[in-house]
């Protein structure tokens, strides 16, 4: 029995020149688990939104082509019909509506008119099944990213949708949380239809029954399981430590301690970074990785524990330090302040050429694809000619091809003598780039 029939889907976003044109037909049968792949900006998320009926019911625009759900055009379905299709987004924070976990889980059931008793029974059952009972009384603001995403997923599963659409559900999660999310999905999808967009394919190998790939021309191509690059191995040690490096010591952490008023975050952290080195930092969410980056960048005061060129950074003015150290946040958009890509790099076209962004020079930075945004944020940092770059989750939201490009860019910069400390959950990416890998574990920096 076919659940979806799709034929030549095209959509133009309102107030934008962006158009998605996908050619080709495909049918999705009941019980299938489909992996939807394609380059960044190819239209995967737009297609998923259309399969949910968000396009055109919630997002207006010019829609052409046909999407049928159980042989009815998706445009003809009402809100009640569309509840048969569950849809989970990427960002765990921005899907939460209610103040506490119990209300969040009850929200959809209340909309369906369930009684308070039935709601309580359903929530208790699902919370016990996935060992989340202890979370029910918590405020949503007190949850970790992984816990938030689990609650978002369970809130959808409680509505017992026939189809589950997942748009990069593990993108911002640490490996442990990502595995837990995938375990819940794995248990749930026994007899359901699932369509999933995901860059971390190794989680999915046992679940997926078939693939669909959107190529650069927007053509939808079916993929057999053996055609999918499950492990997505990145070239190990792609970044060669420059032989000509002078072993010049740029940064040294000596017995670094940091504590919140109520908690010791880490203590006795020792680290040396030499010119041209790429060092990676692993650790669970909340281990203190981002705090360590802020301390090194002089954004949080420290006391005689961090040395830049063997000089205590407390003796340097922040402005002096920032001429040599740059910090790039996980979300590249945080760094965009101007209306065009060329303005972001102060009209230095050679920097844009170096990062393969010349064709986008006049484009608004916020409209770039994820890969282009990340490259632009690196270009912005490089425009300041730093000796040292701190990277917070650089591979976040990047597909395989973009990760390869990013590895290429960082390797090239390291060869010119720029050093990096990189915080990441992506072990393949870390292995591809780093000369040294450390983990912040239980408040200590451990070499891996």
């Amino acid at each position, binding site marked *: 029995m076919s659940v979806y029939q799709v034929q030549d889907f095209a959509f133009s976003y309102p107030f934008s020149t962006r158009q998605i044109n996908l050619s080709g037909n495909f049918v999705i049968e009941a019980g299938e688990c489909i992996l939807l792949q394609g380059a960044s900006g190819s239209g995967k998320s737009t297609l998923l939104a259309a399969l*949910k009926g*968000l396009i055109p*019911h*919630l997002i207006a625009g010019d829609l052409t082509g046909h999407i049928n759900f159980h042989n009815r055009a998706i445009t003809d379905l009402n*809100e*009640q019909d569309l*509840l048969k299709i*569950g*849809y989970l*987004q990427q*960002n765990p*924070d*921005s*899907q*939460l*509506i*209610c*103040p506490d976990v119990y*209300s969040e889980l*009850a*929200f*959809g*059931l*209340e*909309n*369906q*008119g*369930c*009684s*308070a008793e039935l*709601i*309580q029974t359903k929530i208790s059952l699902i919370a016990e099944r996935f060992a989340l009972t202890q979370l029910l009384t918590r405020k*949503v*603001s007190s949850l970790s990213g992984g816990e938030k995403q689990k609650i*978002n997923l369970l*809130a*959808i599963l409680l*509505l017992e949708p026939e189809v589950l659409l997942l748009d990069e559900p593990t993108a911002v999660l640490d490996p442990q949380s990502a595995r837990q999310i995938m375990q819940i999905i794995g248990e749930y999808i026994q007899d359901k239809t699932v369509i999933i967009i995901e860059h971390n394919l190794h989680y999915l190998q046992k679940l997926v029954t078939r693939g669909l790939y959107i190529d650069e021309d927007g053509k939808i191509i079916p993929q057999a399981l053996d055609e999918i690059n499950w492990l997505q191995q990145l070239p190990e040690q792609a970044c060669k430590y420059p032989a000509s490096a002078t072993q010049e010591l740029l940064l040294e952490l000596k017995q670094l301690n940091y504590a919140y008023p109520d908690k010791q975050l880490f203590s006795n952290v020792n680290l040396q970074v030499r010119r041209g080195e790429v060092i990676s930092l692993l650790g669970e969410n909340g281990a203190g990785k981002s705090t360590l980056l*802020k301390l090194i*960048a002089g*954004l949080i005061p420290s006391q005689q524990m961090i040395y830049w060129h063997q000089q205590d950074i407390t003796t340097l003015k*922040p*402005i002096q330090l*920032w*001429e040599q*150290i*740059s*910090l790039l*946040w996980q*979300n590249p*958009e*945080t*760094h*965009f*302040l*101007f209306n065009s890509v060329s303005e972001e790099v102060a009209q230095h076209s050679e920097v844009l050429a170096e990062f393969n962004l010349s064709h986008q020079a006049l484009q608004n930075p*916020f409209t770039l694809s994820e890969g282009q945004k990340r490259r632009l944020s690196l270009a*912005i940092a490089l425009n*300041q000619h730093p000796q040292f770059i701190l990277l917070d989750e650089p591979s976040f939201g990047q597909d395989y091809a973009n990760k390869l490009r990013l590895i290429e860019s960082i390797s090239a910069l390291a060869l010119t003598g720029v050093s990096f400390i990189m915080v990441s959950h992506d072990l393949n990416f870390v292995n591809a780039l780093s000369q040294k890998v450390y983990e912040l574990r239980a408040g200590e920096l451990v070499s891996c």
Partner: protein
Amino acid sequence: MLKQKLHPFEFLLLPLLGLVSIFSLHTWQGYLLTLILMALNLVILNHQVKLKKLAVFSLILLPALGAMFASSYWFAPADGLNLLSGQNNSHQQLIQSANLTLRLYSLALISFGFMLHMPKESVLLNLMQRKILSVKIGFSLLAGFNAFEYLADEFQRIQLAYRMRFKKNYLSPKILLPLLVAAARYAHNVSISMYNRGLHQGRNFQQPKINFSRYDSGLIILNLGLIASLIYLGS
């Protein structure tokens, strides 16, 4: 004990009575007594009053209050009777300015004090449950409360990125652009989440409806009586 028995709507009704009292009275003594009454109400509703935040708010208000006092003292028209009788009206103007300033301060402090201590989620849910507030607006406000922390973090990162990039300690209005984009994306995702879970006006609420107890009615009647007496005595 009493705190749990009182209805969250008390946080809306009592300050409203306080504001009516301030608008109806014309002397600093009346304003002061209303302020004391409202402070007592706040203590009854919420045993742990956030005095520090109220003090900070009062400090922030100081320049505005000072400006109000100065402008009314120097520029407000003098009392008509005093002008006709030819008396020196500077003392009258001083009292009038102090009255106006205290009136403004009382209005601001009552509104802010109750808003600060209000159990916002509970008030919104009760308003929606009684169909006084549309669920679309109510749940959007609830989602907005969740967004504060996320957007505050994002804003801090944007500020730090700006300072590091331009080596400046002061900030430009340009930093509002990425914040605006982050807020718009958040709002878009939340609206999808609500749609995705079938939000509609005729929904149920799993929380039992809280009714007004005799304590609630008693507190309202007591306040009404006291405020009516104040207005009567003031007139």
